[in-house]
């Protein structure tokens, strides 16, 4: 609390007054983006400020933004607008750190119908609207066409089932004379960002959305079984040795660009990094990530979105909503998504957006996002605990140091307990909290 107070004092000092010399209300906007993504939002902020005679948005890039927002909110001086991730919503809303936006959104003419269904779902939690999207993402299989060709595979044909992905994996993987791996077709831990969502491909997410972890169900058993097959086939330590030589994601040494990993699950932003860091002429394809059984028609994907929230206790909620609502207008949202090289979260996409977007597979991603089988990423009150445990257990299984079933059972028990503890906390305050939120949104 003292730390929060000190931070609050610092923020208070740094923030200065809440009106500028022209009498405009100054909004403090914290955002997590850096690089070209930051430049893109900075241009939108400038455009908003130019259009305004009442509000001025001051943007600040903040690292570990989720923690710092928590401390600032605990200290009683939160910023006005914060760019978080949808996965933050359960813990922030249950801890009363956010302002429900239902009433303000309605006043500004924002409704569910404007957005892709999966994105709207991600912005809501426990029946309230907590955020609006900034830029969303869905994931898909990316494959290196040259690696396919070198392995004697058709570079234009991606795997259509998980079994086929593994068949291609075996063909593409190359070993050095000393038995170490020179290249691998696919490894689930590269990148490890989607480990939490893989069970969805085996049947369903790991949480039922209520009070039960579904880690004892069939999908999770199959997922851990799939992981366990990797050290048997490719030797666990050898995979980690190969991985140890991978360079940074945002660098020419990214293992997908260097050909060390031929098939990866990635999001729409990957094309921007390919254009910037991969060698000229790097050829790749994008397709829905394969499922155990081919599913013609609607493809499966998992969606996530960066979001804009108004912290509880923010000084200028209406003005903050004005800025957020301005960004939700199609022309502004598309400008942001174009510059950040992402898909649009909106249901209606202009022909101009599609024509001007540089991503060669944009339509694949837009179709995935609009698919009825586009599911929201895991947004659970125990998100960080879950991620941490998942990293520990999946790494042990992939190293061959723990059996998949033992890891699953141990993790399942731990995570159910962690969820129960969070739900107990929530249940104690739920009636009061819900009544407060209802009052706030006028329902």
């Amino acid at each position, binding site marked *: *609390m*003292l730390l*929060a107070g000190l931070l609050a004092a610092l923020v208070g000092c740094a923030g200065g007054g809440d009106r500028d010399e022209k009498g405009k209300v100054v909004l403090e906007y914290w955002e997590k983006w850096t690089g070209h993504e930051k430049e893109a939002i900075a241009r939108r902020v400038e455009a908003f400020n130019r259009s305004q005679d009442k509000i001025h948005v001051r943007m600040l890039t903040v690292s570990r933004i989720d*923690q710092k927002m*928590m*401390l600032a*909110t*605990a200290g009683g001086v939160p910023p006005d607008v914060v760019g978080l991730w949808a996965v933050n919503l359960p*813990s922030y809303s249950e*801890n*009363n*750190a956010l302002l429900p936006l239902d009433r303000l959104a309605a006043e500004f003419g924002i409704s569910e119908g404007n957005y892709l269904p999966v994105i709207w779902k991600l912005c809501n939690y426990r029946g309230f609207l907590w955020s609006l999207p900034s830029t969303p993402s869905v994931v898909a299989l990316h494959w290196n066409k040259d690696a396919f060709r070198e392995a004697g595979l058709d570079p234009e044909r991606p795997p259509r089932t998980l079994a086929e992905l593994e068949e291609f994996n075996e063909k593409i993987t190359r070993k050095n004379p000393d038995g170490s791996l020179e290249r691998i077709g696919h490894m689930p831990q590269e990148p490890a960002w989607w480990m939490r969502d893989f069970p969805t491909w085996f049947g369903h997410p790991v949480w039922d959305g209520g009070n039960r972890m579904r880690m004892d169900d069939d999908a999770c058993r199959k997922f851990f079984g799939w992981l366990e097959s990797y050290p048997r086939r490719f030797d666990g*330590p050898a995979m*980690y*040795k*190969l*991985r*140890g*030589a991978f360079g940074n994601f945002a660098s020419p040494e990214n293992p997908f660009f260097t050909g060390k990993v031929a098939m990866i699950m990635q999001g729409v932003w990957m094309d921007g990094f390919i254009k910037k860091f991969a060698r000229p002429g790097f050829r790749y394809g994008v397709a829905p990530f394969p499922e155990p059984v081919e599913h013609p028609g609607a493809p499966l994907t998992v969606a996530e979105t960066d979001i804009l929230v108004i912290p509880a206790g923010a000084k200028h909620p209406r003005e903050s909503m004005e800025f957020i609502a301005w960004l939700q207008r199609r022309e502004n949202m598309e400008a942001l998504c174009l510059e950040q090289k992402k898909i649009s979260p909106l249901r209606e996409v202009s022909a101009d957006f599609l024509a001007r977007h540089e991503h060669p597979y944009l339509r694949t991603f837009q179709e995935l996002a609009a698919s009825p089988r586009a599911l929201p990423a895991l947004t659970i009150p*125990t998100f*960080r*605990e879950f991620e*941490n445990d998942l*990293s*520990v257990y999946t*790494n*042990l299984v992939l*190293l061959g*140091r723990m059996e998949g079933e033992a890891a699953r059972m141990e993790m399942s028990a731990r995570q159910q307990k*962690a969820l129960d*503890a969070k739900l*107990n*906390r929530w249940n*104690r*305050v739920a009636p009061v909290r819900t009544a407060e939120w209802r009052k706030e949104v006028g329902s």
Partner: protein
Amino acid sequence: MNRAERRNFARAMLFVAPWVVGFLFLNLYPFLASVWYSLCDYSALSVPVFLGFQNYADLFRDPVFWKALSNTVLFALFAIPLGTALSIGLAVLLNQPVPGQGLFRTIFFLPSLVPAISLAILWQWMLNGPVGLVNMAVRPFLQAINAVAGTSLQAPDWLNDPNWALWGLVLTGLWGTGHAVVIYLAGLQEIPVELYEAAELDGTTPWQRFVHVTLPMLSPVIFFNVLMGIIGALQTFAVPYILTGGADGPGRSLLFLATYIYQHAFDYWNMGYASALALILFLVIVVLSFLAVKLGEKKVHYGGR
């Protein structure tokens, strides 16, 4: 107390006020608050709800807590003696009257000036399995052993192998021995030369002089460094946190109590549980420091006594 004494007392209070205020608000209040929060379910944003000793009961049933505690104690058990032996050895060598003595002292001290974050990032690469400098140095020896003994020893994948990660961290700890070396050097220079002369006249060997003169005379300095080392090692946070990217390391082998406290407080929003963990860490430090002091009473030789 007459008027002059009262005035002097008021002045004295004024001068110590910054320390007293700092102590009250930055030490005592957080300490007492964390004692209270450790008895509550508290997320930092919600009102604390009294739970009694539930957090402590949960903690003793939490296998991850025991893992973090055992990692922390194991690290201290190996890092402190190793660091102490190395820094005393270096200090003795750097105390020899050789040309360039000052330069050598500076060279050995310099690494301890590197901030913990930079140190961790540096060691992330040094300990990299396939391309790290440590393994580049180790591999020729292993190859030689393999050639002679017909074994198939391989350089460890330090930061990915649960069996090696903690040892990798112990290795990184040795990087900062320069700080202790400077203190030992000061201690060595305080040892009266007559003691060595008398020992030489008695026909002692250099090793005997080291064991029977240097070590006893240096014991107060060793005691100070070991005590500080215990407190520092038990609070290890920054380097393993950076090495693992804020996670637990392979098989939780780099999870330390301080990291676990941080995770619960700021990642999981379990400030109450984190406070209970912090108090347990405090008790561990108090107990080990007390034992060190008790041991010191018997083994530390103060010149003035």
